């Protein structure tokens, strides 16, 4: 009758079933007979009163107990029954639930939709072509990067806010946050790109505006779990980019192929949002919702990782000017590897959960966790290595993959994965701090011309990786960090 907060788990299944009396079984002692029938229930009980509760829920009244069993009431009978049966400690029924199970194809799909938009640069390259800008960089570099970083930071924060609402089970509020946040982010990053564009870079600013709109739509679709829609939207552009390998497409067609996915993604995003019933958005009432400030570290984390990835891709260009090649395979490998990285994060979580269930001491758990981290991180680096090698072989005009570049890339990958690992355990502040510091140092080195990116990159990434590894060891070895 009285309510319980765990009501959802109660109900019909928890009503005990006591096997009915078998007509042929005539026991000398009726209590022995009852103990025999209830053996399983009594053996698993934690207290005699639990047995009394079961007896009463079966409809056994004190009057019945007095006449049939010669005991005063259900408590006395329960004590007798509890004493007659040896305790057993049954394990939880059924296989242990794994809340961290993740489907590999879904993760790979996410990696794919993270990486595919990069092809827009391939397709749009002739549209952006022009004389080097005031910094001696290829035309359009500054507005494109400024827009991309702004959009990336904004949308990381926005996704976190949407996921926070979804985590509270409030889909309308998540949709409301996206409805307001996504267009705002698009406008903001387009304005930043426009402000950063120099003379003759209007087409780059236009391209950046399109990129801003795309990022906003993609954020909506990814937050609402519509990766498939996003993939469909990107297909025409992907085909177009593939065609450029053999054909020289006219500018008009290139523009159309760039605008088509943009329009499709925006339309899909609108549809996804209109599918969610409107709500008060959590703002109109006083029920507690996620704080805006809680999303800031996630935005900063986006900033740090964004800078690290861009640095790996275009660091050389900044250092050596318009003549040098963009390390496109590195950037593509890093973004594509985010799919397997996500899957490995889930693997780590489910492996460490298994560790919690198998260990009986804190030390045993720490050891099991260290093992799991080594396996998952190793797996990620192998995948990143393979993707990079493959990309360099396939990409026309890719810069040569030296040992130094490869080391830098793998160290950057290690920074990204360990940072994501920390973030997934709620330690987003330290992860963001390390990534932002590393990214900041790299940018600073570029701006002051202190050291070439080829050496600065691996050194900074190496230091960051060591710091993050130490943090991971200190944090994740503790069982309390693994609350489900």
């Amino acid at each position, binding site marked *: *009758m*009285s*309510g*319980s*907060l*765990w*009501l959802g*788990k*109660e*109900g*019909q*299944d*928890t*009503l*005990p079933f006591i096997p009915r009396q078998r007509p042929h079984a005539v026991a000398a002692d009726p209590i022995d007979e009852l103990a025999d029938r209830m053996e399983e229930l009594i053996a*698993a009980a*934690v*207290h005699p*009163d*639990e047995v*009394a*509760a*079961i007896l*009463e*829920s*079966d*409809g056994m*009244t004190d*009057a*019945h107990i007095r006449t049939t069993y010669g005991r005063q*009431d*259900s*408590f006395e009978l329960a004590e007798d029954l509890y004493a007659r049966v040896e*305790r057993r*400690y*049954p*394990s*939880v*029924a059924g296989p242990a*639930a794994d809340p961290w199970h993740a489907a590999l194809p879904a993760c790979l799909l996410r990696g794919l939709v993270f990486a595919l938009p990069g092809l827009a640069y391939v397709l749009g390259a002739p549209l952006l072509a022009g004389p080097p800008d005031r910094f001696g960089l290829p035309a359009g570099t500054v507005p494109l990067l400024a827009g991309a970083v702004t959009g990336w930071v904004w949308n990381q924060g926005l996704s976190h806010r949407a996921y926070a609402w979804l985590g*509270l*089970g*409030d889909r309308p509020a998540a949709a409301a946050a996206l409805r307001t946040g996504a267009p705002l982010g698009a406008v903001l990053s387009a304005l930043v790109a426009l402000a950063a564009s120099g003379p003759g870079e209007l087409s780059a600013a236009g391209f950046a505006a399109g990129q801003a709109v795309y990022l906003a739509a993609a954020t909506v679709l990814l937050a609402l779990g519509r990766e498939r829609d996003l993939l469909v939207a990107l297909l025409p552009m992907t085909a177009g980019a593939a065609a450029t390998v053999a054909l020289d497409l006219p500018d008009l067609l290139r523009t159309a192929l760039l605008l088509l996915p943009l329009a499709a993604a925006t339309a899909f995003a609108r549809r996804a949002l209109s599918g969610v019933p409107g709500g008060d958005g959590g703002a109109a009432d006083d*029920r*507690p919702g996620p704080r805006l400030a809680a999303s800031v570290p996630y935005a900063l984390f986006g900033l740090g990782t964004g800078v690290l990835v861009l640095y790996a891709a275009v660091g050389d260009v900044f250092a050596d000017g318009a003549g040098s090649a963009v390390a496109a395979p590195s950037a593509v490998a890093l973004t594509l590897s985010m799919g397997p990285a996500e899957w490995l994060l889930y693997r780590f979580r489910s492996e460490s*959960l298994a*560790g*919690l*269930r*198998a*260990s*009986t*001491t*804190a030390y045993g*758990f720490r050891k099991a966790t260290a093992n799991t981290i080594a396996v998952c991180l190793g797996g990620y680096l192998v995948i990143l290595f393979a993707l990079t090698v493959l990309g360099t072989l396939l990409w026309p005009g890719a810069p040569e993959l030296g040992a130094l570049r490869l080391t830098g890339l793998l160290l950057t990958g290690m920074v990204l994965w360990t940072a994501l690992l920390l973030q997934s355990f709620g330690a987003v502040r330290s992860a963001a701090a390390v990534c932002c510091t590393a990214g900041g140092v790299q940018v600073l080195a570029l701006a002051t011309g202190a050291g070439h990116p080829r050496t600065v990159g691996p050194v900074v990434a190496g230091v960051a990786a060591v710091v993050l590894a130490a943090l991971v060891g200190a944090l994740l070895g*503790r*069982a*309390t960090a*693994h*609350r489900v």
Partner: protein
Amino acid sequence: MPSSGRHVTMLTEGTYPHIHGGVSTWCDQLVRGMPEVDFNVLALTGSGREPVTWELPPNVYRHTAFPLWGTVPARRPLLGKERRRFIDVYERFLLSMLDPESGCDFTQGLYALARLARAGRLSAAMRSEAALRSLMWIWTMPHLQIAAARPTVHDALTATDLLEHALRPLAARLPEDCVAHAVSSGLATLPALAAQHFDGVPFLLTEHGIYLRERYLGYRTGEQSWPVKSVILSFYRELNSMGYRQADLITPCNQYNRRWEERGGAPVDRIRTVYNGVDPNLFPHAGPDPAVPTLSWCGRVDPIKDLETLIRAYAMVRAELPEVRLRLFGPVPAGNADYRTRLEKLAAELGVSDGISYEGRISDVASAYAAGSVVMLSSISEGFPFSLIEAMSCGRATVSTDVGGVREAVGDAGLVVPPREPALMAEATLALLRDDTYRTELGARARSRVVDQFTLHRSVDGFRRIYLELAGSPEPVPRYAPVAEPRAEVPQALDDWTLELVDPWYRELASDGSVW
């Protein structure tokens, strides 16, 4: 500031005003019945974002949903001496639950934790690695039974988390000039216990179901391992007993519940039964029986109502009187569709499907009782069921199972049979169906029993006096008598005649003439 008895904090867990059900109905009746009392409703809920499903009357001046789940604002963890002191308190608290031989006191431990909770420090402290290790150290002590269950790190984490969430209400503050009224045992008593200890707030505990028994049944086949279940149920058992020992007054809704309360250590002189009540005006005499002899049942379609026994009994009745029908009124709650299918299959096996109808939820509940020649109750567990006293108020003869407070409600104004005995239930039902005079007489007796003893007016009035009494106010009514000891109260009921005459249902009764 001393309490005036006109300011009450009502503490609920997972019920009023967020969820519909028996306890919520009772809360609503109480609050509406006392417009002169200011109510502050503190509702323990899951996320704190559950919608309010009851319309709150104006005398509920504040309603707070206190979430047990969701994140707590991050606070600086305890360090150094503070931490050592906490670990000492926490380990004693754990020992008081897990090792009765240790001599540690649960009550003192809970107050010490409440002090931390009120300073906003408890959650962070309990979520620390040190607290986890304390539990792992204690429950692997070889002399404890729980050690034999080989608890894992995961078990320790789960148990600690459940305790941490369960203890959150310790941080809730109540106004110092109120009476704290917890409408169930368990977690809802936590803020009341703290307010009583630290601020001297009077603490009233009402029980409808038996909280501890429901926890035992809920965790029995739950997803938790034995060690977790053992810790959590030990916590509930100790908390329950502490509530019983500390409450200034315990008001079960029937005598039957006292068994568990006394078992839990409640002092006999502080238990006072206050029966649930029904408004006889809203459930007026239902008039003549339906043309077709019908058995009516009203409630949630749920295994605890044991409708299988009812259907079996119905099949036996129909073998004797083929024209009898069975009408089941009430919703099938989410998750109970399987149970309904099982019932339909049973009816088909017995060949009585064509005589049974599922009427679903209805707005006019009184008409459900009116639809029956006899109203049935087949539950295997009940507190003091509203459906029974409502049917009685409608002047219907009843056949019900002997569970909880049913016998106290029915008295000699209906038939009571043992639970899970279809043959006996059928026999009693046939006796009523075959004897029109007997049936009518029992119905009339049932209505007068409700009007005499189980009116809403009386129930609410009982609590009004208890609030004043707990607040230490001078006796408002010169001759105070225990509220709901029915036998002792006949003279008082007569004394109150002039007072009660103003109530509308007495006009109806006076013209109806069926009572006196």
